[in-house]
């Protein structure tokens, strides 16, 4: 053999190095792909990328296996005449033929009843486009896979603190001293968490892992606390009980930044029981918490407007307002609620000894209280008070599907958010920190439509297919209280299913409950294998026929890069490209890859040409949108507006002249603006020159306390990330949930369940 030191790998063939973004999991690390004679030689992490800083995981390095997999689809396929679904008997057809088939079918559906077209996607990283396509088509039947994945994590936290783990926020391990990880294995997110965790351990931070099994990250935990699956909520309630009992909560934080001291009507006989007592004032209609609520002043021993300067309110007690209304501070309701949830009670449920639960509570409470961090960063709160420093209580948490993917997930995660709040750790150093575009109002402004009239022939959907209900009247139901969406999201059954319920789609379509559909388009979603928790029956439903011998789900289109199990059941198969063969935008309109210090978004730029006749699904949507004449994709005269997907990404604006598009970086005619600005024809090139990502670092004074940071909120409003620069008060007590409870009790003045 030749001496290895006398040769260079780069001399073997024609070598090129290109940068793009990984898609072997959902983390979206920056990668460098080396090509030899046009084929992929190897993939490594991009050392300049803010997310992975050069690291690459086992999946990322294995991207080459996906690229050259023998299971790749390379041609559009049509189920053979007479062949049964599931038999995988297809004929290859041209894209033109495929588009004609889809166009014919969908234009008819759109003219008659757009909701008979359903578009559901898997771990889709362009939901801003797929969701927009559905809205433009006019169907409410759209979502990605979140409904059976992390929706409880997003909803439970966003409905409590205005942000959530992973894409929208995370543990600040750079400054934390105690880190508690619950129900997380090796993902969500992967490389950034591994990098931070290793540095945290090296600095001597204490890492506790609460998990039924000791795998992955848990292996290096200083302490592993084994817990029975699905009982995390009980543990968290017991810890909360102990923290309150010992007085180990951050009183100052709770009073200023949460609704803990706000007075709640406490009289079960009244219709406003459990709602905040509000006084009358002029309120601009918006999706923020108006400051028209009351505290109980310790000194005056009477009610007083919240945030009255110099007032110290009570967190505990029960009081009578001047008009005789019995009230309690929200914190007292929490205290009442957890009274019975003692460590002994939780020990029985979780399998964790009561003494361990108490010790965990004490560690959290004492570290948060006694090891405070003070950063010399000036900032101003939304009430106009100047602060000379940012305070941090250095206890950080991270949790994922171990909590989220249970039927009690929403409440477990709300309990975790409350625990993090009690310790005073929200958007503070060493605790939980937000990532742009979060924090957002609680709940965020976008709402689903609230009635069937939002679905009209040949008309875009009046509202967003997915949104954030804040009251029963925001539910997407008809006069009889029946769901308008096929998956029954935002119905009385699933009121806060903010990511939709993809796992219901095939079953409901098959049953015709709430109605039958015509065409189901699945993108990168293997419902006949692992995405439905019901693989065998999904296959039966996809092949089941009605009395007339027609399939109960009449037409199934599957877009995928691989011959998945579901592909076998498709009537029409659209071969997608791999992530290395296409343009993509990880958009601020969807789930960007922001860091704690500011917004980050990224793109993919092809490093190799598509294999065979593969076409990126993005291009398929642009083509279909143009052919179907969906308003966002055509000019006024009905002609095609965008040449292709890259052209769409550059030139699309949320409304004409809004300056808001898919990519935040290098906007403005010459790329001189960010977040908001005119389309820039050279935007893709500028991303390419910058490693395929855009990172805007906020001034230090805007990096913390963002729920109540005037400078940050006004900056965010100026850059159109939020609509109101109003404080985002943490919902220790959720009045939103109480509104639904009152509706169930028949006490809500608006919609009540059937």
């Amino acid at each position: 053999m030749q001496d290895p030191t006398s040769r260079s790998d780069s001399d073997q063939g024609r070598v090129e190095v290109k940068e793009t973004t990984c898609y072997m999991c959902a983390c979206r690390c920056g990668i460098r792909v080396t090509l030899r004679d046009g084929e992929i030689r190897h993939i490594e992490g991009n050392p300049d990328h803010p997310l992975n800083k050069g690291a690459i995981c086992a999946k990322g390095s294995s991207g080459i296996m996906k690229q050259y997999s023998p299971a790749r689809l390379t041609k559009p396929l049509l189920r053979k005449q007479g062949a049964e679904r599931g038999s995988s008997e297809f004929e290859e057809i041209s894209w033109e033929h495929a588009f004609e088939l889809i166009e014919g079918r969908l234009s008819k559906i759109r003219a008659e009843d757009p909701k008979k077209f359903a578009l559901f996607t898997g771990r889709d990283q362009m939901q801003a486009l797929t969701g927009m396509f559905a809205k433009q088509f006019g169907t409410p039947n759209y979502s990605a896979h979140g409904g059976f994945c992390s929706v409880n994590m997003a909803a439970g936290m966003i409905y409590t603190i205005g942000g959530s783990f992973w894409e929208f926020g995370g543990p600040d391990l750079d400054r934390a001293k105690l880190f508690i990880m619950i129900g997380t294995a090796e993902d969500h997110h992967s490389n950034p968490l591994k990098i931070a965790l290793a540095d945290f351990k090296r600095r001597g931070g204490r890492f506790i892992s609460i998990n039924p099994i000791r795998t992955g990250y848990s292996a290096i935990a200083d302490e592993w606390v084994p817990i029975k699956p699905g009982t995390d909520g009980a543990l968290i309630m017991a810890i909360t009980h102990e923290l309150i009992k010992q007085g180990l909560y951050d009183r100052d934080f709770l009073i200023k930044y949460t609704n803990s001291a706000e007075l709640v009507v406490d009289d079960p006989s009244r219709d406003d029981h459990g709602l905040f007592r509000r006084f009358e004032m002029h309120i601009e209609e918006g999706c923020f918490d108006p400051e028209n609520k009351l505290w109980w002043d310790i000194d005056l021993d009477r009610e007083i407007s919240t945030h009255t300067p110099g007032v110290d309110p009570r967190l505990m007690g029960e009081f009578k307002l001047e008009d005789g209304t019995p009230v309690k501070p929200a914190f007292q309701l929490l205290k009442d609620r957890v009274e019975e949830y003692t460590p002994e009670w939780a020990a029985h449920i979780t399998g964790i000894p009561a003494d361990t639960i108490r010790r965990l509570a004490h560690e959290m409470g004492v570290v948060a209280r006694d090891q405070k961090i003070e950063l010399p960063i000036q900032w101003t709160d939304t009430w106009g008070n100047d602060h000379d420093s940012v305070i941090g209580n250095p206890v950080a948490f991270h949790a994922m599907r171990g909590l989220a993917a249970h039927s009690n997930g929403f409440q477990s995660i709300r309990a975790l958010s409350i625990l993090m709040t009690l310790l005073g750790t929200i958007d503070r150093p060493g605790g939980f920190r937000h990532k742009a575009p979060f924090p957002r109002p609680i709940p965020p402004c976008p709402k689903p439509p609230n009635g069937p009239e939002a679905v009209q022939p040949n008309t875009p959907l009046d509202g967003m297919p997915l949104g954030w209900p804040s009251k029963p009247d925001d539910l997407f139901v008809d006069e009889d209280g029946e769901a308008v969406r096929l998956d029954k999201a935002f119905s009385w059954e699933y009121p806060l299913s903010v990511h939709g319920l993809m796992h219901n789609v095939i079953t409901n379509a098959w049953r015709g409950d709430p109605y039958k559909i015509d065409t189901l388009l699945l993108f990168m979603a293997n419902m006949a294998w692992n995405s439905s928790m019901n693989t065998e029956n999904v296959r039966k439903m996809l092949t089941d026929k009605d009395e007339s011998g027609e399939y109960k789900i009449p037409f199934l289109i599957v877009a995928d890069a691989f011959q998945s199990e579901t592909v076998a059941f498709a009537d029409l198969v659209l071969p997608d490209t791999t992530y290395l063969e296409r343009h993509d935008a990880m958009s601020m309109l969807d789930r960007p890859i922001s860091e704690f210090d500011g917004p980050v978004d990224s793109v993919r730029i092809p490093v190799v040409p598509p294999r065979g006749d593969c076409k990126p699904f993005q291009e398929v949507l642009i083509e279909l949108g143009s052919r179907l004449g969906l308003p966002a994709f055509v000019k006024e005269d009905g002609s095609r507006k965008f040449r292709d997907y890259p052209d769409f990404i550059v030139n699309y604006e949320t409304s004409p002249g809004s300056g808001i598009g898919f990519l935040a970086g290098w906007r403005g005619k010459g790329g001189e603006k960010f977040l908001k600005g005119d389309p820039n024809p050279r935007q893709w090139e500028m991303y390419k020159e910058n490693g395929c990502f855009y990172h805007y670092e906020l001034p230090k004074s805007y990096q913390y306390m963002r729920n109540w940071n005037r400078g940050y909120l006004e900056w965010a409003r100026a850059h159109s990330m939020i609509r109101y620069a109003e404080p985002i008060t943490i919902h220790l007590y959720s009045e939103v949930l109480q509104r639904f409870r009152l509706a169930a009790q028949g006490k809500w003045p608006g919609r009540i369940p059937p």
Partner: protein
Amino acid sequence: MTQLALVIDLNVCVGCHACVTSCKEWNTSGWAGPLTDQRPYDADPTGVFFNRVQTYEAGVFPNTETYHFPKSCLHCEDPPCVPVCPTGASYKREDNGVVLVDYDKCIGCKYCSWACPYGAREFDEQQKVMKKCTLCIDRITDMSLPESERKPACVLACPTRARIYGDIHDPDSEVSVAIREQGGYPLQPEWGTKPSNHYLPRRKTRIQIHEDELVRVDNPLKKEALPTLPEAGETLDDVAW
């Protein structure tokens, strides 16, 4: 003499296998490739890996530990695989101490794998030659690469930076300092092979909370104590004379 080696920090290794696949990907198309796979897309796939992560559980529930243990050729200072080779295919480089196999000389007799006490050698069933970790010899000696990238693929990939690479004979190198200061140890030193690769042990951080730290004078519960007025009734003012 230079002795290049890896120091692997078991305190932070989470067993993610990034080192395994990045190694395989780099080396299969490199000087020491291919790392042949058999039945890669079928049942029971198997193949050549230069680096594997073995995972062990130790202890009795609930006092258990999970160890992720990455293992590759340890580039011994006195490698037993070298003298047993009948053709001279198995050799140790004099310039940097890396142990290599020359496939052109290898006859696939497997003596070296029997001699290696660590099970670090991998036989390529297709090419019928012995293969093993080269410490990415075609990266670390490639002067056309920037210095920051003249490292084994596994080291560059590792998300927890659990793999440190350098010269263990240089007392000031990062690897030597880590071994010295963090209790780095070789595997099975009793075999006398003087493995160059070292491992850093697990370290635990604990917090001790004394009872008197639990309640402080500024305990917020005190704020909530309602003012208590003395009960009406007799006082000394009423009865003393």
